Every structure is written in C-alpha cells, then in structure tokens.
C-alpha cells in the first residue's frame, strides 16, 4: 500500500476514535463484565473439547474409511466377495476351473509408496520409464525369479502353449478310412513297424533312469500357469469394468438433465438396435431354416456321389477314386464339404465360452484354412480356366501333335528298329517280326481310334478349361486322367510284354532245375533232386535251349515298352505332384502366415545381463515354427515316394517282369486327407448339430451391450484413478 494512503487511513481512524470516545469505553466495560462472569473460560473449554474429539475420533475414522476405500484391502475384499467378477458374459466358475485356483487374490502392488504394503508376503514391483525391466521385491522371499511376457490377446487368437499346434487330426483311424477293408499298403506297414520299434526304445529308455524324481507341485503347476497367462487379458478387462464397484461410495444415479443428454446421444443407436432386433426375431429364423435345408440337400447329393465314388465291385477291387485322379479330387472336395458344417458348429459353440479357452483354436485354423485353400484354388482356377478356354484350339493342336509324335510315331519307329537287328544284336528275326507286327497292328488300330477322337479334342479341352472354375486342381486332375487314357495302349503293351517275359523267365528257371537234375518241391518249398528219364531230360534241355535263345528278343521288346511306360508314367506322376504341391502349398502358407494363428511355444530368454539385482528377469518369447517343421508333410511325402520307387523291390519287379505296384494314392494324398476326419458325419448328425446351435439372441436383451458403448472409454473407467492404481 502506498505510504500516503496509509497515513490518510491512520488519520481517519484516530479522528473516528476521538469523535466516538463513549463507544470505546462501552466496549471496554463489556469485556470487564464478561471476564467477571466466566464467559471466556467456558469458551476456551469448549474449544479444547472439540479439538480433542477431532484428534481422537474423527481423524482415525476418516483414516480407516480412506484406507478401506482406496487401498488394496478394498480390492482384496471385492475379489473375495466376487464383486469384481460381476456382469461376466460367461460362467465365472470356468475361469477357476481352468486356472486351478479357488478364488482370486491380490499378489502385490506396482509403484506403491512405502508403507502401504500390509502383508509382508506381497510383492512390490517398481517400474521405471528409463528401464525396460521392472524392479521386483518381496520382503519374505529369499530369491525372486521374474519372467516377463507380452500378454496374449485372445481376441486375436493369441495364446501361449507348451506344445506347437497340431493341425492334422490325430485321432484318425487310418485303416478304417473309406469304410471298407482296404488291403494294407506295404509302405504303411513298414512305417508302422518303425513306429513300434521307436516306441519299444522309448519304453526301454524309461527303465534306464536311476532315480525317479517325482514332480513337485511347482512342476505340475506350469500348465496352469500357462492357462493363467492366457486368461490375463480377459480377466483384466472384466475387472476393469467392475472397478467402480469397489469401496463404500454409493453410485450416484444420473440426474434428469444428464438422462436427457444421454437419451439424446444414444437415440440413433437405440433405433438401429430396435430394427436389428426385429430382423433377428422375425427374419433370421426363416433365413436360417432355408439355409439349413439347402445345406442338407447338398449333403444328400454329396452322399450319393460319394457312394458312387467309393463303390467297389468286390471288396478287394479298387474303387473309382483309386483309379482316377478326377474322382479323387471330387472326393476330397466332397469330404471337405461334408466336414464344414460340423466344423462350423464347433466354432459357433466356441462363441459361448470365454475367448481364452484355447482348445478349439486348431479347429478354427483348420476350418478357415480349408475354406481359404478352396477359395484360392478357385481363384487360380478361374485365371487358368479363362486362359485354357481362350486357347482351346491351340492347346488341342499341341496335345494332338505331342501325343502323335511321342506315343505313336516314336513307338512305331522304335518297334521297326527292333525288328531289324538293332545295334548289331542278332535277334531271332522270326519272333521279332511276329512281335513287332503284332504291336504295330495294335498301334495302327489305336491311332485310327485317336484320329476319330481328334476333332473332339478342342471340345474336351474346352470342357477341362470350364471345369477349372471348380478349382485349379480339377483341370490338372482331368488332364492327368486324359493323358493316362490316351496312353492306355502303351500300358497294355507293357503289361503284355512283361507277362510274356515273366512266363519265359519262370519256364527257364524250372527248366534249368531240370537241366541240373533237380526239381522244385512245392509242398516243402525247396529244391529236391529228382530222377528224370532220358527223354524227359532231352526234351527239357531242347526246350531250355530254344527258350534261352529266344530270350534276348523278348527282353528287348519288354525293355522298350517298360522304358516308354516309365517315361509316360513319370510324366504323369510329375503332374500329380505338381498338382498336389500347387494346392497344398497354399494350404501351408495360409495356415502359417496368418497373423492371428501364429504358433507360440514357450521360450525363455535371458535378460539378466541388463539387470543387476538379485532376481533374474527372463523374457518369454514366441518361437517361430522351424522351416522343416512347416513342410514336414511334404518331406514325408517325398520320403514315401523315394522309398516306394527307389527300393530294391521295385528293381526286382522290373528285372523279373513282374507288375510294379504303383504307389497308393492314399499315401500320396495323405497331406490333404490329414485335415479331414476318418469318418464323415452322417446326414442326421449334421441335421441335429445344425439345429442344436443356439438361436441368435436379440441385442436388446443383453444388459451390457449398450453399457459397453456409451459410458466407457476403451472399456476402462478413467475417472476412478484411485482404484486402478492398486490393480495394475
């Protein structure tokens, strides 16, 4: 204040007192009177009483109330009474069942101030923005192991598991596939034998461990811990939603004006919701019923087709699907189609459970994987089909030219070469002439047949191109079938010459025994010595010599056809493989490159070098699938092919002119069948499963479908900062 105004004020006060002097004396008298009657001491007593009450009653009560309201005790109480788990979408008991605990507890605090820890067994974690690792302390524990993990988000289907996902159905019964007793394949037998041997070794190694360590409760808990980690995300959201219920404060209801504002803002949502509910109640059941009926009609057609494809003349004879690649392709598609409704039902049931239950994830991947595979197949097929249809004439010309060149002209020239003493070999010209003429005549007949087929070829190619709208593997399978049909003559030549060669070889063998004076005893399965008569020996020896001299001619013809067939067959096999690879490479890429279905192992990585406290911090990281594991099935298929065709058995068959058994299609296509169940679901089963699906509920009945929209921000309540601090 300015000194001049202070002076003015002082002069004014002094003037006022001198003017009203009697008022001042009155006041002085009143004070004296009050002091005489004890008023002052009574006021002082009252003040003292109130301050003592305040000190000893109100402050402790307020303190207790505060601690009850905001500190972890409140959270612990809320957890015990189950307040925090209210309004759960799915049964809460499922959480405790899978996580192996009877209730939830507070384990400790993060970033709490000193002195707020009530329980010495509580863990305290202190995070620091500069450090990547939190400091974890606990007064009771002697040492602490920390393992950090990124919380898997179940909405994105992330989860942690100790084992990699198995996409193929493991519960499948291999032998019962197809519904009829199929003859066991040799390769499969061998594989099973190997597996048995491995199992035997495993059993033996178990007996070698000297001291058996019984797993402690800690060791057994790992699976449950993994489950708890998987549940963390969903539980956190549930708890955050109920955070406002902690503490004694009653929730204030909205005032009238607030209600008006809320109604105004959610008006549009309410209207949309009402329309949606009407659709769900009245339109949806009709659509659903119609869809189910169409699905069942499709299933009936599929069943009829499958019965045709699997029909066998006799139990041992091959079915249509074993002969033709097209039939096989159709069968795979039909089986997939039969399996989809069941898979879908399974996936729908998953929606009724918590997202964190991870048992159905392989089903999910399998379902969408096969859908994705078929979709890709169709997309590529459309591109391929349009190309083939546009160039049908040219493709037909090319195929005709190639077939003519390699299966007729080349064969004719090679046969005529064999007829005229090939490469200086002096063959029996009469036999060579006879065999050559025979084969040439059949080839002539076949070529005339092929020529009648020639004008039809563009139409056939067009049809093949058109079929590719059902997927790119279909035209390839059709082409493969067409090729094997057009080279049927070579196959029959091979069979005929192999049969002749084989007969001659067996006759030669038995005549050789006769030549040595021995005989094969069928009853004892051995070679016995035998006394032949002179004429028997003479005729036998003459026949032996004759056949022996005729053998080279037959061998040459046999080799010719075996090589020709080998070329054709390998070509066919090649297309098969390519087709197989084509469709299945998509499958693998789709199943492993989709981000929501990445595979996660448990991997522990050391982070302790950064971290100098007594506890160890480890980081859990997902382990990517190894390249070899990704393509394991291809390697297996390659191995099977190699084992089948590069085995001494096949060589022996070739040398002795026996029939080389082709590799079983089931072995080759096991990759695709591994995603399908061994037994397809019946029509009634599908009907029941589809009808058992819970009907879609109208949204308005959900108590908190709306509540999640309006007052929550990101699913957590922001204003209640006190309670969230204890939880995190």
């Amino acid at each position: 204040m300015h000194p001049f105004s202070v002076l003015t004020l002082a002069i004014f006060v002094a003037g006022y007192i001198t003017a009203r002097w009697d008022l001042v004396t009155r006041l002085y008298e009143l004070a004296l009177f009050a002091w005489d009657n004890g008023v002052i001491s009574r006021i002082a007593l009252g003040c003292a009483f109130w301050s003592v009450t305040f000190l000893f009653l109100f402050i402790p009560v307020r303190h207790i109330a505060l601690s009850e309201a905001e500190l972890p005790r409140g959270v612990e109480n809320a957890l015990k009474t189950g307040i925090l788990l209210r309004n759960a979408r799915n049964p809460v008991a499922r959480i405790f069942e899978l996580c192996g605990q009877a209730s939830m507890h507070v384990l400790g605090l993060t970033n709490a101030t000193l002195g707020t820890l009530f329980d010495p067994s509580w863990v305290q974690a202190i995070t620091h923005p500069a450090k990547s690792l939190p400091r974890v302390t606990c007064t009771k524990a002697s040492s602490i192991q920390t393992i950090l993990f990124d919380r898997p988000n179940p909405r994105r289907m992330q989860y942690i598991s100790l084992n990699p996902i198995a996409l193929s159905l493991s519960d499948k019964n291999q032998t019962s596939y197809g519904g009829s007793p199929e003859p066991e394949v040799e390769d499969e037998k061998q594989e099973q034998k190997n597996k048995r041997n491995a199992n035997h070794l495993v059993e033996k190694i178990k007996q070698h461990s000297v001291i058996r360590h019984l797993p402690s409760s800690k060791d057994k808990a790992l699976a449950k811990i993994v489950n708890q980690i998987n549940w963390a995300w969903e539980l956190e959201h549930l708890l955050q939603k109920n955070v406002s219920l902690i503490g004694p404060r009653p929730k204030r209801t909205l005032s009238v004006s607030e209600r008006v504002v809320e109604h105004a803002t959610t008006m549009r949502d309410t209207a949309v919701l009402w329309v949606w509910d009407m659709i769900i109640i009245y339109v949806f059941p009709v659509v659903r019923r119609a869809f189910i009926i169409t699905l069942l009609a499709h299933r009936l057609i599929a069943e009829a087709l499958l019965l045709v494809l699997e029909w066998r003349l006799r139990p041992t004879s091959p079915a249509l699907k074993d002969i033709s690649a097209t039939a096989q392709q159709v069968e795979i598609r039909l089986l997939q189609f039969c399996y989809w409704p069941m898979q879908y039902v399974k996936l729908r049931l998953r929606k009724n459970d918590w997202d964190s239950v991870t048992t159905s994830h392989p089903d999910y991947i399998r379902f969408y994987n096969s859908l994705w595979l078929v979709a890709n197949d169709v997309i590529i097929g459309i591109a391929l089909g349009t190309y083939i249809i546009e160039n049908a004439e040219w493709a037909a010309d090319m195929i005709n030219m190639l077939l003519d060149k390699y299966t007729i002209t080349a064969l004719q020239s090679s046969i005529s070469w064999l007829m005229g003493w090939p490469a200086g070999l002096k063959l029996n010209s009469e036999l060579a002439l006879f065999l050559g003429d025979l084969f040439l005549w059949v080839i002539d007949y076949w070529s005339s047949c092929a020529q009648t087929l020639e004008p039809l070829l563009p139409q056939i190619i067009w049809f093949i191109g058109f079929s590719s709208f059902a997927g790119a593997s279909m035209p390839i399978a059709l082409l493969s079938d067409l090729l094997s049909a057009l080279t049927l003559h070579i196959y029959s030549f091979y069979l005929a010459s192999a049969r002749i060669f084989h007969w001659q070889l067996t006759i030669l063998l038995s005549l050789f025994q006769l030549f040595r004076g021995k005989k094969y005893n069928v009853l004892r399965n051995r070679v016995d010595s035998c006394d032949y008569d002179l004429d028997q020996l003479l005729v036998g020896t003459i026949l032996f010599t004759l056949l022996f001299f005729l053998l080279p001619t037959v061998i040459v013809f046999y080799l010719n056809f075996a090589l020709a067939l080998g070329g054709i067959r390998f070509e066919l096999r090649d297309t098969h493989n390519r087709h197989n690879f084509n469709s299945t490479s998509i499958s693998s890429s789709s199943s492993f490159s989709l981000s929501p279905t990445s595979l996660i192992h448990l991997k522990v990585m050391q982070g302790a070098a950064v971290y100098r406290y007594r506890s160890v911090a480890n980081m859990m990281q997902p382990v990517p699938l190894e390249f070899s594991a990704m393509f394991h099935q291809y390697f297996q298929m390659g191995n099977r092919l190699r084992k089948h065709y590069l085995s001494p058995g096949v060589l022996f068959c070739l040398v002795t002119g026996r029939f080389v058994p082709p590799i079983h299609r089931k072995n080759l296509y096991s990759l695709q069948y591994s995603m399908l169940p061994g037994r397809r679901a019946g029509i009634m089963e599908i009907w029941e499963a589809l009808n058992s699906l819970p009907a879609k509920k109208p949204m308005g009945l959900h108590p908190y479908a709306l509540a999640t929209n309006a007052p929550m921000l990101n699913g957590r309540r922001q204003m209640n900062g006190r309670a969230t601090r204890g939880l995190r």
Partner: protein
Amino acid sequence: MLTTSPYLRIRRPSPTAAEFTVSTLPPPTVPLRLSLYAIYLSQGLLSGLILLFLYATWAQSPYGPSPPPPPAPSSSATLSIQQRLLHAVLASPVGVLLATRATAALVVLPPRLAVPACLAALYALTRRLHVEESLLVLRGLGIQTSSSKDSLLAGRATTRFIPTEKILDVVINEAFRGFEVRYYLVVVVEGEPDVVVVFPRLLPRADVVERVWRGVRECLYERKVARLDGKAV
C-alpha cells in the same frame, strides 16, 4: 586368435537358476573387441559391395530395367526412398567405380560364373564367427537349451524349452564319432522318441560335460551329487 577351443562359463544369477554356456568366443578384451568390430564392419561393407555389384550386373544384363529417364525434379518425387537411395549410391564415386568394374569384370568373367561366385561369397560373409551354446536351468520351470545358428541372417539361436514335468532324466552318454569317443549330455524327454542333445554343435569335452551335469542336477533337484567314479550315482 579370434576363436578358442570351447570353454565353459557358468552364471548363477539366483540360487534357483543357472546358465551354462559353452562358446568359442574368447573372454572379451579390448583388442579382441576392436578387431571384432573391424571384422563386422568389413563384413557389412563387403556384402554391401557385392550386392551392389550384383545389382549392376543385373542392370547391365538384357533382363535389366529399361534405361531410366534423365532424373527430372518432378520424377524424383514419385520414386520411393529406397529407389532414391539406390540412385544416390549409384551416382556416387563408389557406384560409378563399381559399375565400370562390373563391366570390366563381366568381360573377363561371364555372369553365369560371376553370379554364383558372388552368392557363395555372400554366404561365406553371413556366417557366424563363433558358436555359442547354452543351457539354462530354472528350478520349478524347466530347462532351455539354445544353440546359435550358422548364418547371421537366420536369427540368433534355436531354442528348446522342456518343462520339468517332462524331463525323465539328464544323463551323460557316449558315442563314437569317427575314431574318437565323445561324451555328450542328453535330456530324456517323456513321450518323445528322440532324446535332446545339449550342446549339439560343440560337443565339449568330458570334464566340461560332467561339470554341467553336476550343476544341472544340483540346480534342478536341489541336491548335491556324489562323485562320478566310473559309475552313475
């Protein structure tokens, strides 16, 4: 000088955890570190040069891109950062030198020989100098084996975590390899046909393996192991 014979390092951050590392990287000293940095730097530079050489070869081959239009200021905006960077590198003295070198070298050496040679050199350059394999034991949780990968591009290490529940036994086994007997540590896992070999690439000496075995037993099962006198405990 850069590598040693495999030796063991044991680290026990807490009484319930232990890490056994066998590596061929000698304990770090200042000259070693400097030389290693120099080697990494030269590796990076050399592989960059080889990649540039490959790019130049491709650009000069008939399959290469059509000759780029003269760089106008308007067209440079449409190019991506990588393309601009590549242009900048190619326009620099090093790039020009490489391009001339490439033309000169391609006259002497046809590309079908030069390209495989370059790829082989790249493969050699991306190989890891040291092998490091470790075994981490966490009581109550399990064992993790890890083994560093051959190539720098393949990632750090392949790891395998085995929960304690699944461990049947940890044993030392012996096997013939060529004309020598090798002792190796093996984890027998329940329900698996194959055992897991610890330190599969280095296969350290018997005394190292024995120390690791002892440590694993002690850490995993919380008890001391008696002397190993020819027979198992």
